[in-house]
């Protein structure tokens, strides 16, 4: 299991990335992350929503209520242009970190 601090740091880029795949609702996002990580990334499901709400108030995500075919009302979230830009910045930063670690751990041939 991931230490909390790492969870806290990564939740934003992960959330943005999941939404960059397309519009999604809460449970779907949780499931997607769960499946991708094979269960190594876990958080209280309840805290996912405040994170989404904060992304929304920061203008990175927009939301709308829709009624699904099943008749169930769901709140869908989608990335805004601001969100796409933020994701790009996050992506570059995480890749930088990743590159350093990868080099240190010899996972990638060093460029002379």
């Amino acid at each position, binding site marked *: 299991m991931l230490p*909390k601090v790492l969870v806290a740091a990564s939740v934003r880029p992960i959330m943005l990335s999941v939404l960059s795949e397309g519009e999604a609702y809460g449970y779907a996002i949780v499931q997607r992350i769960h499946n991708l990580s094979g269960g190594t990334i876990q958080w209280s*499901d309840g805290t996912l929503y405040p994170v989404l709400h*904060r992304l929304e108030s920061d203008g990175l995500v927009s939301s709308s209520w829709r009624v699904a075919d099943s008749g169930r009302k769901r709140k869908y979230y989608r990335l805004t242009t601001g969100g796409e830009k933020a994701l790009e910045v996050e992506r570059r930063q995480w890749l930088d970190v990743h590159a350093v670690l990868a080099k240190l751990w010899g996972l990638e041939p060093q460029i002379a």
Partner: protein
Amino acid sequence: MFNLDKAIAHWLKGLSQRSGFRQEDLEELETHIRDYVEAEQLAGVSEKEAFQAGIRRFGDPEFVASEYQKTAWSKARTREGLFSAALAELSMVASYGQVGLRNLFRQRAYASINILGLAVGLACCLLIAMYVRFELSFDRHHEHADRIYRVAREWVDENRTPVLALARISMPIGPAMEKELPEVEKAVRLLQFDAPMAVDDLRFIEWDVFAADSGFFDVFTAPLLQGDARTALTSPNTVVVTEDMSKKYFGSADPMGRTLLIFDNLELTVTGVMASQPAASHFHPDFLVSFRTTEAWTSESDRGEWGQYNNYGTYILLSPSADAGVLQTKLPAFLRSHYRPRNNTEDALLLQPLTSIHLESSLDAEFEANGNRSYVILFVAVGFLILVIACFNFINLATARSAQRGKEVGMRKALGASRGRLIAQFLGESTILTLSALVAAIALMWLAMPEFSRLTGNRITFATLGIWDVAIGALSVVIVVSLLAGAYPAVFLSRFQPVAVLRRSVGGSWRSGIRSLLVVTQFAISIVLIIGMGVVLRQVSYVQNKDLGFEKDHLIVLPVAPEMQTDFERYRRQLASSPAIESVTASRLVPSRALVDHVGVQAEVNGEMRHASLALNPVDHDFLDVYGMELAAGRSFSKEIASDSTEAFIINEAAAELLGWKSADDAVDRRFIFEASGFMRPGSVIGVVRDFHFESLRNKIAPLVLFIMPERYSRVTVRIAPSRLDEAMAFLENRWADYRPDFPFTYSFVDQDFGALYEADRKVGRLFSYFAVIALIIAALGLFGLASFVADRRRKEIGVRKVLGASVSGIVKMLSLDFLRPVGMAFVVACPVAFLIVRWWLDRFAYRVDPDLWLFALAGVAVALVALATVSVQSIRTAVSDPVVSLKYE
């Protein structure tokens, strides 16, 4: 059967009771849980298990709610408007309060130590604040307070050393200032005297009768309830009385136009009824007699006398544009244009701002005993220090608990709580503590009020405070203390790095720097206060028990009636006839009173006449014998030698030294001339009396001359047989009645009069002792809390030690010594500080104790013992506990 809809509804209801969730959020969460259950059911899990797993994965509702709350403000910007956001914020504050209360309840011991310490500290502070506020408010009720000055007078000798400074001046100075100096808008003279007052059969001796110029009401604020302020004091034989005096003499009848008989021979017409001066005033007239009344009693020459008869408290009202500094520079020329001193002393007039008189003026002949600025400063410091000690307890206990709180902080932070939120939470907790402490403090104040009121002269009560003062004072104290006590723990705890806290415990050991620094400071303050207390008490006992140079016990002082003055010898023999009475004498002043009168003298020293100014006291032949004073040279007055009554002088050793004689013997039989205004008595020194304390031990023994002059006697001193007090008193009262059947018999004991001189010091010493002990108790309370905490943390360690064979006494020693180290450090810090403070205070006494080393050592040992006793209770409890239990614990 499990019903999903019911279960969900129940769950949502639980959430909705917490703040932070909006209806929309709850709807979204319902969808979430239904989606989850549906997906799990598809995977073959039962509906009930799926729901329970979903709830588990949802997380702790309280925590999730706090996460929701954090987004409330940002939501406001985008959507919902500020009102609902403010509501959310408010509910969050409430939730912090709730969390805070829950935390306090879980930590009852910790909370009660904090609250108790803070409450006692706050109660002390509030009482001190009341005292200080009262002392600072003196004479500020006068509308023109900032323009009123008192004119005092100071004399210096040829070496510019002050000889005398009087709060009252000669009669013509005030009116001349008003007439000649444009800065002076109005001058008012006040003559204080005691007099019998009578209406029909009602007759009392009144002590606070003042003669006042008609401008009194222009200068001072003393609202007239009846009468006209412009005319009330303009005519002779008129009087304005206070409301209390009106009731006393006239009951409910209208006093206006009625007459009061003063001195049994003069009728005064009541022309006004005024409000009494408030407690915070440096004078309290019960009667204002028009000044023109008293002018009739003084001779023409006295009225023109600029040098002598400094009996008139003189107050001037400056014109609004005038500058007191400028006026002061004009005063020497003004005085010289009217008066040139006859001997070689120089005199000067001094302006004293009215509002500074109470705290800064301690001249001779003040109307009432004034306060003292250094005591006010002392108490402000003590109050502040006590508050500091109490706040340090709070900080120490809060940070000591940081190991436990650290985990909580780590969790909150990891899950996104901002530092500001955490600080707000900790400050919220400290505010709750402070508020509870304030409630307890007010209760404590209420309990302490009677004693406090008594020690401060019955002038400060809850009644003297307005409701706004209380509210504002309490509120500001709560804010200051919450910030002071809560800020450090808040900043300290909220700084924790989540990774660090969650991995291992932080908060460190007992030795962790800041905490021991605070404990050292607390104990240093306690030690300083205890040393201060010791020195004050020792000095007070010293001044009361020091050998005064005469035998002060068994001496009774009575007033002299004019009838006795004319034939004092007959009265003396009458009194001495009682076997209960050993001896009788008369004098103008008796020891314990200020030596107000000074006179110029000439004396033959080494063949030439030297001038000096000496204090004087007319006495009777037996004065030295009755008081048991010793002669250093020469002889005492003798009734056999007729010339002793007219040309003999006895001086004290201080006077002999001042005049320049090499020894006491050298002075005997030397020529000595005494010069009062318009009066000269040539003669010689017949004896030198050993220095004795006439005045308070604050003052150096003044150079003094004694001589015989029956018409100036105003007091009779009677030495009674030690075991026959009652008999003597009955006899004296009867004899008194023979002379003045209409006059009440008044008397005082010399030793008590001397004791009264130090009444203020004794009260301050007493108050100081209370506060010092309270400071120590609060510090000990904090130490107790800290010790319990440390003992608790080291339970397992101690269990292991015991299993491995450590003895109980060894463990107690180990735990206790840890705590004694800061007390030792505190002692080292406290000693020099205490020494400086104590010396500053002792400097006000001309005769004083030394701040002994043993006193310092004693204070250190006392504080160490208190600390040790406090810690031992915990240490022993921990040390004797069963290791099996403590090792199983967790």
